[in-house]
């Protein structure tokens, strides 16, 4: 029983981590696109 619960929890955690990463990358891309569209170009990365 507890093995099933642990597997479910760990799978859920992995899925959450991946969704978090996807949302993070998407947000950054949207911010960059928005900055470019409005002409507020950020400083270039070194």
């Amino acid at each position, binding site marked *: 029983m507890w093995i099933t619960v642990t597997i479910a929890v*760990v799978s859920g955690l992995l899925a959450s981590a991946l969704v978090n990463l996807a949302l993070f990358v998407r947000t950054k*891309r949207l911010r960059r696109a928005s900055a470019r569209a409005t002409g507020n170009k950020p400083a270039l990365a070194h």
Partner: protein
Amino acid sequence: MNGKVSEKIQRWLLFGALFSVLPFVASWVLWKGQHSGKPFHLYFLWERGELLIASAGFAADAVGECISTDRRYLAARLWAGGICIVLLFIEAVWFAALQATPGAYDLRWITGGSVGMFLVTLVASGICKFIAAQADEPEGELTS
């Protein structure tokens, strides 16, 4: 991903993740040297959950990195760090259970579970490190 972030992730992969399994590689080499010809099973290496210690170690390192940066990307860092803390807790409890009751668990479960936890922790810690590295970048640099 810019050079600095990539460098941080690569450094963590090499010195955090890869080198943490080096003791097991050494154990495997020694075992092979002593028992040549005998079939090898993965649970010989971590039959009492030793791999969970390595996983817990780099999960804790990732959490430390995640909470020590400034307030940028707070929500993403909270999620990544929180997930690593829960994984760390599960690993600690499971390792304690294995130590307290040796022989009570099926070796296949210990092996599969340890490897599974290691891989999930590797991914979660990597995400943690990636977001923390992005948050460490100077303001205004948009690098992804």
